[in-house]
């Protein structure tokens, strides 16, 4: 069956309400996309999803994923390691299924340059890889901050905002801290990766201190006056962590102006504050370095894209997804990146096949844990606005877990957080 007759057939099937698998089976997608080359830079939540879904939706496309790491460590649920009840193995995934089951060429190397005119990607290992369409998903990098340059200071003062060795280091510092110590967490200014993340972290470090080092406490020194899921976190902190977690807003001199990494101190307007364990999360985040090197960023440091196809508005045939992209209306989260990747993958498949591009449809579901058995969530289902300038929620949909919910509901959501990780990781790397 040719493609057009298949489509006609389906429309008729739709008209008579007879949509069924029989109309789908046996019509492999081997159209004009056949033999086309898609290269993906970055094998995280967004990039790995895109690689797998391009292949799923058109197996004739040759897909290459460039990712330096053999193993990917998930930021989502990495705060449970800091809390002392999660372990690294549970949040670590690899690319075996990507290679063996989904037939994606996985190149463990670092992309160092992109030539949008010649349509090639160069790697650190010296390879030059040609593409018809490129998908860039390198996550985030940090701008320098007074007293804190991630590459120089992260070994003393971990940000742990990229999971892996940084998570392990912060955990070790917490373990080594004497009872009675002070942990300072300094969250970033907006926009940044995972808006509720610093507060989940404060909660779970609070959990560790309360259970193992009860004379210690966490101080959150915030450059903001409000934060994501604030009502729910505050409710949880009052319930579980009275005396263990103190949140200092910008108005109360929370904004950190300078870091002394060696001395584990931060300076605010008022003066220096000494920590026993300092977790500084750099406030000036930007798209992963390769995005700027490829000329895909604007002056904000992030990448402007067409919101339907995720194609860069700067360079043709290059798409940007995940934290690196500017997606008005959506947060920088793993779940958001996963659904952006699916919209992008389908657009790429359609464009390579000369098919019309579907309108995009994305979502975010983000669980946060306050204790191992107290979870809550924020979610949204997004449609593209008619002018295609941002994503919006359908009226009345989405939002937060209710305040004052029962312990059973909180427990259920804590379970769902782990269920979400198991399923999204299988959706991506499985």
């Amino acid at each position, binding site marked *: 069956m040719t493609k057009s007759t298949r489509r006609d057939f389906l429309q008729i099937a739709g008209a008579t309400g007879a949509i069924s698998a029989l109309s789908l089976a046996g*019509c492999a997608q081997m159209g004009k996309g056949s033999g086309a080359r898609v290269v993906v830079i970055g094998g995280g939540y967004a990039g790995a999803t895109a690689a797998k879904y391009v292949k799923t939706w058109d197996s004739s496309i040759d897909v290459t994923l460039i990712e330096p790491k053999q193993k990917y460590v998930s930021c989502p649920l990495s705060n449970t390691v800091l809390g002392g009840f999660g372990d690294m193995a549970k949040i670590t995934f690899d690319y075996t299924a990507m290679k063996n089951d989904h037939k994606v060429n996985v190149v463990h190397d670092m992309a160092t340059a992109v030539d949008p005119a010649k349509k090639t990607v160069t790697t650190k290992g010296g390879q030059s890889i040609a593409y018809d369409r490129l998908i860039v998903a390198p996550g985030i990098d940090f701008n320098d901050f007074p007293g804190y340059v991630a590459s120089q200071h992260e070994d003393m003062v971990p940000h742990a905002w990229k999971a892996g060795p940084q998570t392990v280091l912060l955990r070790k510092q917490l373990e080594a801290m004497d009872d009675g110590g002070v942990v300072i967490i300094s969250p970033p200014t907006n926009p940044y990766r995972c808006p509720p993340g610093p507060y989940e972290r404060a909660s779970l470090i609070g959990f560790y201190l309360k259970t193992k080092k009860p004379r210690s406490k966490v101080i959150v020194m915030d450059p903001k006056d409000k934060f994501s899921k604030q009502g729910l976190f505050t409710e949880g902190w009052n319930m579980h962590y009275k005396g263990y977690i103190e949140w200092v807003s910008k108005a109360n001199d929370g904004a950190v102006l300078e870091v002394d990494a060696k001395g584990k101190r931060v300076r605010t307007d008022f003066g220096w504050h000494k920590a026993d364990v300092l977790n500084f999360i750099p406030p000036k985040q930007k798209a992963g370095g390769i995005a700027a090197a490829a000329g895909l960023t604007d002056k904000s440091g992030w990448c402007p894209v067409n919101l339907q196809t995720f194609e860069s508005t700067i360079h043709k045939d290059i798409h940007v997804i995940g934290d690196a992209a500017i997606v008005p209306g959506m947060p920088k989260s793993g779940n958001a990146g996963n659904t952006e990747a699916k919209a992008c993958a389908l657009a790429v498949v359609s464009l390579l096949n000369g098919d019309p591009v579907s309108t995009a449809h994305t*979502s975010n579901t983000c669980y946060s844990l306050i204790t191992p058995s107290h979870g809550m969530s924020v979610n949204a289902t997004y449609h593209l606005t008619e002018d295609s300038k941002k994503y919006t929620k359908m009226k009345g*949909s989405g939002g937060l877990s209710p305040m004052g919910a029962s312990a059973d509901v909180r427990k259920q959501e804590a379970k769902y957080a782990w269920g979400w990780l198991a399923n999204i990781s299988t959706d991506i790397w499985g």
Partner: protein
Amino acid sequence: MLRKFAIPMAVGVGAALTVFAMPAQSMEKKMAVADARLLAAGCFNCHGPAGESQGHIDEINDISADKMVKKMKEFREGKASTIMGRIAKGFSDAELMALAAHIEALNK
């Protein structure tokens, strides 16, 4: 599971439903319905690829399209839930029908 997931996708199912389904609210009539493959894949991040869950969250690979639409409408209309009520309100009737038909087809 892998085999099922790799079944070629329903090009045009979503488009077909845009034309023929009758959304309940007039606001929805204007809204373009995304491709059914995309709508369905939007369930898999929480419910697992093709709806096959690894645990803790219900699997959705074993229910008929009719039943899925019915359940989603119940959630939308206020049936008690932790999160599905909030999610179901984000879909039009046409979208629900498209994604449910697609997930049913994937798992046949």
